[in-house]
């Protein structure tokens, strides 16, 4: 079904054919818009060169134009339905997927949707003030694109809650607008979404490491036997690609500029020359990577096993895997610390599904490091960036009770305290990065600490006036 833009809420789910649901979502819409005005981007703009979804099929789905942000057409878009789709895993493997929520899985599915939904407005809140210090109009536009699409992803989850979970779902949809990132009384559900995003290096790290976690979480929900959830996540993944583009190329450009300044002044102490030292970039990688690893949950999880067995949440690339997709007879290895030594345990594969997903994620992140090290190598520098050990700085899971260095040494609390400022951003590091965050709003200009992009958006040049201010 094509997207109906004549409706108050653009959609491809025939909202007009379900008056009760339409009214419920139309009554939620003003609350969303009020949340956007109070918690969304703080910089006032007239319009922004944004991508809007206009279709979901193979014929192309995006349209670019200058749009007043508060008039962005947030809507409900599901990927096209495959009427032959079967459950790919778990104890109901091979049976038709569900178009309604089975009563026995109602609470678990609602919980999964609420957790995913909670992350979407959280990141908008975290990034609310970043526009005030954008390094270029190009970057400001990219920030706003990420923000409006995270807002749309909230719509996607709210649609599911309203359409399939009755009063409980409607209450949860309201609560998604009541919790706020970093709020002491009513914080967002997951830790990484209560962390600050106070500067653009943090933003690029967040869109690389944390949005990449989103790629994997959405990828597992795309496998769900609950077909509306699967189709919702499939389309969200299209939009999520842009967020990873922003993160990957954003860090590329920070590293490129750091390498240029390091070469130019023949020192890694490039702070006084308006750059972000590679040592500080490494600390930001250490922080954002470790916080994002926590999002995968504990290495052993009966919840994850139950979700899989029930068909609620699959594995990454479930249908391409060459096993029985039931896993009751399989085992897997998980990393842990025993008697002060890093080791591995063999456990039932069903219990290790969080670890399985995290392993896939880590492989992606390793590619990012190769990419950034290629920049350093091409600049003729010997310095290399790296991913810290997966046990480093963990707050969730088997490593959370241990202190592990980025190189993977298990150390005591005294060593950790003495050395942590070498591994994680210090107040002085953050202050320096913040001191560089000065807005550059002139078309074609860029801040000193970051290299310009190699190309613009949608074939527009970097100099294009992507944002008009009010």
């Amino acid at each position: 079904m094509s997207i109906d833009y004549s409706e108050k809420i653009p959609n491809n789910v025939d909202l007009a054919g379900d008056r009760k649901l339409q009214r419920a979502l139309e009554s939620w819409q003003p609350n969303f818009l009020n949340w956007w005005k109070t918690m969304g981007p703080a910089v006032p703009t007239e319009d922004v060169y944004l991508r809007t979804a206009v279709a979901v099929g193979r014929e192309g789905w995006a349209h670019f134009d200058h749009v007043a942000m508060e008039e962005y057409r947030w809507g409900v878009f599901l990927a096209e339905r495959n009427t032959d789709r079967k459950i790919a895993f778990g104890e109901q493997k091979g049976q038709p997927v569900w178009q309604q929520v089975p009563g026995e899985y109602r609470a678990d599915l609602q919980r999964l949707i609420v957790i995913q939904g909670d992350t979407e407005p959280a990141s908008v809140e975290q990034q609310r003030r970043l526009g005030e210090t954008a390094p270029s109009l190009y970057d400001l536009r990219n920030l706003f694109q990420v923000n409006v699409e995270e807002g749309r992803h909230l719509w996607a989850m709210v649609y599911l809650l309203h359409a399939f979970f009755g009063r409980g779902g409607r209450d949860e949809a309201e609560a998604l607008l009541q919790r706020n990132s970093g709020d002491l009384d009513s914080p967002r559900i997951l830790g990484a979404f209560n962390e600050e995003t106070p500067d653009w290096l943090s933003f690029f790290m967040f869109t690389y490491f944390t949005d990449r976690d989103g790629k994997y979480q959405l990828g597992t929900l795309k496998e769900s036997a609950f077909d509306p959830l699967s189709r919702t996540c499939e389309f969200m993944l299209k939009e999520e690609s842009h967020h990873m583009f922003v993160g990957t190329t954003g860090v590329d450009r920070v590293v490129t500029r750091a390498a240029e300044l390091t070469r130019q002044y023949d020192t890694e102490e490039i702070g006084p020359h308006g750059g972000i030292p590679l040592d500080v970039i490494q600390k930001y990688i250490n922080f954002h990577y470790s916080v994002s690893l926590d999002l995968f949950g504990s290495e052993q999880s009966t919840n994850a096993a139950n979700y899989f067995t029930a068909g609620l949440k699959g594995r990454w690339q479930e249908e391409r895997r060459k096993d029985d997709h039931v896993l009751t007879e399989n085992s897997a290895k998980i990393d842990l610390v025993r008697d002060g030594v890093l080791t591995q345990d063999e456990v039932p594969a069903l219990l290790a599904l969080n670890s399985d997903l995290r392993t896939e994620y880590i492989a992606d992140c390793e590619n990012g490091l190769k990419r950034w090290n290629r920049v350093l190598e091409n600049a003729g520098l010997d310095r290399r960036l790296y991913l810290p050990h997966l046990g480093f700085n963990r707050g969730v899971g088997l490593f959370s009770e241990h202190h592990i260095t980025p190189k993977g040494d298990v150390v005591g609390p005294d060593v950790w305290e003495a050395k942590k400022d070498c591994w994680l951003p210090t107040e002085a590091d953050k202050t320096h990065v913040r001191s560089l965050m000065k807005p550059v709003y002139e078309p074609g200009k860029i801040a000193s600490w970051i290299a310009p992009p190699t190309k613009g958006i949608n074939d527009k040049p970097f100099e294009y006036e992507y944002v008009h201010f009010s």
Partner: protein
Amino acid sequence: MPYVIAEPCIDVMDRSCVDECPVDCIYEGSRKLYISPVECIDCGACEPVCPVEAISQDRAVDPDFEAHVADNATFFDTVLPGRDEPIGAPGGAMGIGAVGVDTELVAKHTPQA
């Protein structure tokens, strides 16, 4: 190396993946498409739209098509027939258009009906 395109793309070249790629890193040979391992950002947008499941992460390539992992890089790193230098990483496929030639591995592949 991030995502790669393998043998099922040969003589199909559906090109849906080209439209999805946010960094324009999918280049067109004569009989097959190739992903630049340097320019790919690992977003995964291309993978689900391929009608013949030719695209996967390098670590998940079907063992029968393993040679295509290195071959995707070969397309960019070596001097292809009729060219003076390697394609390298030009920063986007649109700028150079269809390359129109393939790697030796693909060129030698028996044509699909």
